[in-house]
C-alpha cells in the first residue's frame, strides 16, 4: 500500500511529465519536486498505473515521457481537414472583396498595391468564401467577385450589413489619425447592383472596344 507522500509524488510526476515540452530525466524531475521525493518509485508507480491504457509511460535515452500506446498509433495518422488558416495575402484579399464587393481583380490589385497572385483568389473561390458575381459593364467586361453565404457563416455574420464599419474599426483602435480626412469604409450591403449577370455573353453590348485590355 502506498503512502500519502508516495501518492502525491506520483501525481506531481504525472503532471510534470504531462506538461513538459520534452522528456524529463530523473534529475530534471528531482529538481522540480519537493526535496526527498522518491522519483524512481513514483515513476514505477506511474508506469504500472498506465500499463494497458491508451497512453503509456516510456523511457527514451534516460528520459521519461508519456506516449501513445503502440497499438493505437493508427489513430495518430489522421491528418485530414486541418483547419486552414488563411494566409495573410488571402486574408487581405478576402477583406477587400468583403468590403468592396462587387469588385474586379484589377480593383483588388489597386487597393493591395500588388498583383494578386492567381492562387490567392482561386483559393478563396475554392474555399467557397468568394464567388464570381457578374461582369462589370466596362470595356473588357471584367468579372466581379463577391462573398458567399459560407463567408457569412464562417465569420458569424447574419448579413453583409453586419460587417463592422469605420466606426467599429476606430473603436477597435485600428484607425489612426493620420488617414486622409475623406477616408471611408464602404458599406457592402448598400453596394449598387449594376453589373451584368454572368453568362450573358451572347448579348454583345460593345462594338468599339473589343480589342480588349491587352498589355
Amino acid at each position, binding site marked *: 500500500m502506498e503512502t500519502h507522500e508516495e501518492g502525491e509524488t506520483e501525481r506531481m510526476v504525472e*503532471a510534470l511529465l*504531462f*506538461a*513538459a*515540452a*520534452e522528456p524529463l530525466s530523473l534529475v530534471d524531475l528531482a529538481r522540480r519536486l519537493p526535496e526527498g521525493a522518491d522519483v524512481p518509485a513514483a515513476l514505477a508507480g506511474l508506469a504500472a498505473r498506465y500499463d494497458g491504457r491508451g497512453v503509456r509511460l516510456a523511457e527514451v535515452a534516460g528520459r521519461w*515521457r508519456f506516449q*501513445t500506446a503502440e497499438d493505437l498509433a493508427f*489513430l*495518430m*495518422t*489522421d*491528418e485530414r*481537414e*486541418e*483547419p*486552414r*488558416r*488563411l494566409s*495573410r495575402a488571402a*486574408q*487581405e484579399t*478576402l*477583406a*477587400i472583396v*468583403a*468590403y468592396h464587393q462587387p469588385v474586379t481583380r484589377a480593383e483588388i490589385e489597386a*487597393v*493591395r*498595391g500588388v498583383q494578386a497572385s492567381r492562387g490567392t483568389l482561386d483559393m478563396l473561390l475554392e474555399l467557397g468564401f468568394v464567388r464570381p458575381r457578374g461582369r462589370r459593364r466596362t470595356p473588357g467586361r471584367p468579372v466581379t467577385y463577391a462573398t458567399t453565404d459560407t463567408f457569412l457563416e*464562417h*465569420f*458569424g*455574420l447574419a448579413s453583409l450589413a453586419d460587417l*463592422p464599419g469605420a466606426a*467599429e*474599426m476606430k473603436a*477597435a483602435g*485600428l*484607425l*489612426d489619425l493620420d*488617414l*486622409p480626412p475623406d*477616408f471611408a*469604409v464602404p458599406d457592402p450591403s448598400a453596394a449598387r447592383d449594376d453589373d451584368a449577370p454572368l453568362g450573358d455573353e451572347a448579348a*454583345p453590348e*460593345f462594338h468599339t472596344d*473589343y*480589342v*480588349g*485590355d*491587352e*498589355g
Partner: protein
Amino acid sequence: MSDTFQPDLDFEAARGAVETGEALIVDLDGYEGPLDLLLALARSQKLDLLQISIARLADQYLAFVREARRRRFSLAADYLVMAAWLAWLKSRLLLPRPRRGPDDAGADELAEHLAFRLAKLDAMRKAAESLLARPVLKRDVFARGDPEEARIVSTTRVCGDLYELMDAYITQRKREARRNYTPRPQQAFSLEAARERLRDLLPELQRWTPLTGVAPMGAGGGPTRASFVASTLSASLELVREGDLEARQLEHFAEIYLRRKRAA
C-alpha cells in the same frame, strides 16, 4: 430632465457630511468616473448596496467633491454633473412629496434606480474578480506540453476571425493611403506614326494577318503594347476607309485580321 438641474451645489449638505465625521480620502486618480466613486462611497456605507441611504450617499459624494475643490483639484465635468444631480435628488428626497404628475418620476424611484445601478456595477466588478480567480490556462493549469507530431487538431473550430479581417482590411487601406504615386507620363503611339508605319507595311500584308501581329510589340521604355495595338487598329480603320486595307473579324472579341486591299 436638464431643466431640473440645480446650477449650484448644495454645499450645506456637504458640510453636514463632513461634520458627521466621514473620513474622506480625496484621491481622484483612483476612481474611474463618478459612478466608480459613488460605488466606493456606498460600499463604505453598507454591504448591501440596495439598502444604502441615497441621501447619505449624496452627502458623502458632495463632501468629496467639495473637498476636492477646496484642494483645487481639477474635477472632470462629469463629476460636477453628477454632483448637481445628486444635490437635486437629495433635495427632492427631503421635500414633502408633492402631488406627482404622470410623467414625474418619483425621487424615491430615482434613488432606487441609482442604488440598482451601483449594484450592477458592483456585480460586474465581482464577476471580474471571480473570473480571474478561476484556474487560468498557463497560469494555474497546463495543457499537454508536447503534443504528438501528427497534429490532432480540432476541425470543428471556426477559424474565421472578424477582428483579423478588419485588421487585414485596414492595414491595406492605410498602405494605400500612404503610397506615393509618381505616375509616369504615358507615352502614346501616335496615330500619325501608326498610319505611317502601316502604310510602309502595306506591301507585306498580302494575306490576312492578325492585328496583334501587325502592331509593334513594344518593349523597354516606349509606349505600351496596348497603345501600339490601339493606335494600329485606329490607323488600320482609317486605311480601310481610304480603301487601301481590308479588316475582318469573325466574331466579337475574336482576333482582327488585316489585308491589303487588292486593286479592283
